[in-house]
Structures are given as C-alpha cells and as structure tokens.
C-alpha cells in the first residue's frame, strides 16, 4: 500500500458492490423485518432536547486573577459590557494558536519523511507559520495578562474549540497519513482560525479595545496568508497526484 499517494486503486471492502450476492440478500432481509417501534429519527431529537434543557453548560470563565482585572470587569459592567465574553474568546484563540504550534511540528515531521511536491510546502514556510502561531499565542497571553485574566485557564470556548477540532491533530499525527493529507487537516484549522480572528477583532472594537484590535489585525493578516498558502499547497498536491496516478508524487524536501 503506497503512502505517497492517497487515491491509488486497491482492495477496499466498504462498498455494497464488493459482495453482490450477499448484499442483495441482506438488503431484502433489512426491508422485510419491521421496526420494533413506529416513528422516525425525531425520537432522537426529543431525547436530545430533554437533556439539553436539563444540562448545565461546559463551565465558566474564571474570575479575574488580579485587582486590575477586577477593576476592569467592574468598569465594563458599568458600561453595560460583559467582559467575560471577551476573556472567553481570547482564551479560545490562545489555546488554538498554542495547539497550532504542535500541528505544524507534526507537519514538519511528515515533510521530513515524505518530502514536498511542486507547489507544495517548504520547510522554511512551515517553520514560519509555526513561529507565527507561537507569536500569536504570546500575543494572547500578553493580552489576557493585560486585562488581569489568567492566561493558563481553559475557558469554555477554548474547551469547545478543542472538542470541535479534535480530529485535526489526530489526522496529522496518524503515521498512515502523508503530508498532502495533513494539508487537509491544516486547511480546517486555518479556515477556523481566520474566521475566529475576524470575530475577535469585531468583538474587540465593539468593546472599545481599538489598540488590541489593531494588533489582532496584524495576526489576522498573517493567518490570511497561512490560509492562502495551505490552500495552494493542497491544491497543488491533489493536482500532482491526479496527474501522476501510477508513480510517486513526492520529490525530495528542499
């Protein structure tokens, strides 16, 4: 089984056409047996709704970790602002950027094994993105500290974001995926990252944190570049594979 390309033809048993005789038989049997209860998938929704009504949330944003934070929170409340929403989203970006560093470390590992392709990522550019993620993590740490919040806390949005994206590190760390497949995972991360920075900038401006918003804009500019690069690398990788179905798509790493 080649790992250099992902769409080579081979034995795959998952489709119904793999077993024409057995499949015909099981299709007939499935239709013949009546369900044990009437209804449709709506029953599942009702159970979900019942639990949703009873559930607590994922958790809370911790109280400010300094007197400055307490003062800022109180001042925000007087202006009709709930500063914890901002802290929650800053915590989310911090966690995402920090995990992003580990994602690009994983991609660099794959680059060493598989090499790149024409129009694909170089060590230099992957390292640059990794450094950007690290600097964005630093930016979020500084911002949270400046607001009197604890940058080490896992906020509810940070937790949720990790649940949503848990497949991304898994796809990159899997020994069976090649660098081109890792690009698919990085694309998911970068798309989310771009949209999330946009949201954070709007939130910052809405709360009157214009200086912070300006700094975040620089981060977004970098993220937009990351997204463009990853999309390009992925497109080139897929195109390379499609052009050369019978041979390896890899070339040595630069």
């Amino acid at each position, binding site marked *: 089984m080649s790992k250099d390309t992902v769409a080579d033809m081979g034995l795959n048993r998952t489709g119904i056409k793999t077993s024409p005789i057995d499949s015909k038989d099981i299709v007939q049997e499935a239709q013949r047996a009546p369900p044990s209860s009437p209804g449709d998938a709506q029953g599942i929704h009702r159970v979900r709704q019942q*639990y949703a009504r*009873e*559930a*607590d*949330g*994922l*958790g*809370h944003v911790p109280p400010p970790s300094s007197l400055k934070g307490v003062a800022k929170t109180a001042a925000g409340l007087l202006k009709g602002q709930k500063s914890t929403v901002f802290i929650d989203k800053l915590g989310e970006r911090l*966690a995402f950027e*920090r*995990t*992003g*560093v*580990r*994602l690009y470390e994983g991609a660099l590992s794959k680059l060493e094994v598989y090499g790149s392709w024409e129009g694909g990522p170089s060590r230099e550019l992957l390292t640059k993105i990794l*450094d*950007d993620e*690290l*600097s*964005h*993590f*630093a*930016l979020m*740490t*500084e911002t949270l500290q400046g607001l009197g919040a604890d*940058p*080490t*806390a*896992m*906020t*509810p949005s940070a*937790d*949720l974001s*990790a*649940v949503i994206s*848990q497949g991304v*590190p*898994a*796809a990159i*760390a*899997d*020994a069976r995926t090649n660098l081109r497949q890792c690009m698919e995972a990085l694309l998911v991360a970068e798309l989310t990252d771009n949209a999330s920075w946009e949201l954070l900038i709007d939130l910052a401006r809405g709360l009157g944190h214009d*200086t912070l918003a*300006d*700094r975040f804009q*620089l*981060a977004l500019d*970098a993220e937009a570049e990351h997204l463009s690069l990853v999309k390009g690398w992925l497109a080139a990788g897929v195109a390379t594979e499609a052009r050369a179905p019978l041979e390896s798509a890899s070339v040595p790493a630069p």
Partner: protein
Amino acid sequence: MREQGAAAALLRRMGRAFPPPFKEHLVALDLFQEKGIPLERQVFTWKDLVRRPYSKLDDDAFTRTRVILMNGIEADALRMKHIFARLNRELRPHLALVRRAEHHQQTMVNWLNPPDQSPLETTLGFEQLAIEATASVAIHEPDPYLAQTYRFGMLEDFDHLYRYSALYDRVEGKDPNNLIQSYSDIRPGRPTSLEHRHPLDDVRTPYDHKTADPLSKLHAITITASEFQTHDYYMTVGPQFADPVARQLYAEIASIEEQHVTQYGSLCDPDESMLEKWLLHEAAEVYNYYSCLAYETNPHVKAVWQRFVDYELGHLHYVMELFKEMEQRDPAEVLPRTLPEPIAFKEHREFVRKVLAQEVDMRSNGPDYVARLPEGHRSSIYQAQLNSEGSPSETVAAGYHWRPGTELAAKAERMGSVQEGRRLQ
C-alpha cells in the same frame, strides 16, 4: 433450581427486614446497624442512569478522581463476581442478583464523566487518583510491609502523571494542570522505563486473613480495583490514539498497570473463602462510597454517592446473611464494627516528596524491597529487552519540565508577540 429458589427467598426476607436508609452521619458508620436499601428496591431507568455529568472546567479535580475510582471499584465488583460464578454453583444466583445492581451502579458512575473530557484528560485523572488515593492508603495502612508496597507503587504512578502530562503538552499543546488543578506535582518519579520488572518480582506476600487489620483488607481491595480499571482503561483507549508515541506510551504504561494489578492483587490472602472475599469487597464498596460522600463538593454527584452508600449497605447485609447461612460464621469475625476514617481526597505533596526522596531507587526482588538488585538480575534482563528498541516514556518526556501554560509558554515568552521582526502593536 434449588439455588435460584434460595436466592429469591433471601431477597424477599431482606426486603422486609430493612430499616430506613443510612443518612449522612459520617462519624463511625456502623456496618451492622446501618442496613441501607434492600437489593429488591435498587431500581434504575435509562434516564436515571444517564445523568448530567460533572464539569471538566468548574468541578474540583477530586470529583473527577472519585468518579474514576468508583467506576473502578464497581468494575472490580463485577469482575470478582463473574469469576466466583464460574467457580461456585451455589453462589451463582446470589452473585447474579447483586452483580446486576452493581453493573447499573457502575454505569451511573462512569457516565458522570463529561463528553468534552478526552481520553488523555481522563488518563490524567486516573494517575492523579492513583497518586493521591494510594498516598492516603499508604499513610493509614497499619501493616508496615503493605504500607511499603503502597509507597512503592505510588512512586510509579507519580511518574506516569509526568509522562502523560508531557504527552498532553507536546502532542495536544495543552496544559495538564487544567486537569490537575495544582494539587499534585508534575515531575519525574521512579522513571517508568525502570519500572518494568520480571513477573516474579511483582508478586507480593499477602496479609494473613486471620490476623490482619480489617482496614488492611479494605485497602488492598480498593487499590487493586483501582489499578485494574486503570489497566483496562489504557488497554481500551490506547489504540484510539493517532500519534505513534501516544500509542507506544499507553502500551508501556498499561504494562506497568498489569504489574501493579499483580502486585496489589497478591496482597489479598488467597486462603480467604469466596464468601469472605465477597463480604470484604462489599464492605470496601461501602467504605469507598462513604469516603467519596465525605469529600464531595458537587451536589449532583454527592447525591449519587449517598444513594450508593445505601445500596452497598444493602448488598453487604445480603452477603452477611449468606455468610451466616452458608458458612455458619459470624460476619463480625471478618468485618470491622464501624468504618475507618475515609480515604482522604486531598493533596499529599509533602508525603509524596518525602517518599520520593527516600525510596525512588528502591527495587523489588521477589516479594522483598531492596536498595539495589544484584548484577544480571532477571528484572534487569526483562527490562533491557523491553526497552531495547527505545523507551516511549523517555522519548515523550525528554527534557520536559512542566510549566504553567505548557512548555511552549516559555518559548512564546522569549519570542514575544512579534512577527517578521515587527512587534504586533
């Protein structure tokens, strides 16, 4: 069948004989006076079993460890009863009756784990439990040899927390202290790579059931159950990881957990009768729920502990009756009149650091603890073989120091929020 008829009759009789359930008067629970809730009134629904979970973010770390512990205790209750049922015709129906309630108890407890808690995060909870509960047991254990055994094992689980923390930090980019909540140290213990021993160096000398303090028996059952579940958990989730180092690390630490089950399981006297073992296990279940109840801070979870103290008292009295009828023995020969002080769900850093300083280099030679092993010892050969193609626990934590916000925090601090030489401002 005659055996089923006897079980049904005992069930009916016990249902009539029970006074109101035990209420939370935690001082000196009298195992003979408090009869809990009779088995036949221990009923569940699916909705009841699947409840609101605790919060990974807001609840105390010890709530997580208690849920992990009680899942392990119930898993062991089932495991032991299934083995007994294979070996004893007369006990089978009685075992089936109690076991079904315990299966559902295990379900309710285990389903308190929240879905946003990843397997690695739960793993951190397993190791924190292993450190803090074993430390509490080691401190309170009256038998010096048994206490030594708990200290010996504790230093190994202590190291596992450090290795898994490095994995969490380096593979997922997250801070293990989000789960540990500053209760436990995150630093090396007895290095996992040095914990691999020949099976014969994990078999310990059991307590003597005729002379041992009942607390020693409850301790051995508790820690064996906890370690068994740790082993089973790692064996289940290990292959679900994508990262090859994670897959290797789970394989390595699961092997140590198998050693620990061998070690702690061998502390129990094999000359106890099945019914005596069953009776003690039920007492250990009461004791563990009672300990959880004493410390719980989440009211929803606390209600579960309260309910199951009563259920376990019901099981205990059911087995007391069997003990009297089938062995013609008085349960007071085996059980303490009142429960000992609860297991302490709190940090034991000072104790752990002291043990670490004094006993980290200790090894075991057969059942004995020694300062060093002789040259060419079977455990050294065994260990060298397993580590001969590399050590996952050393690889994952090479140069690793935990620090708040992950090890990347230091790097980020050095770098600052700059981009292409320009400060993000």
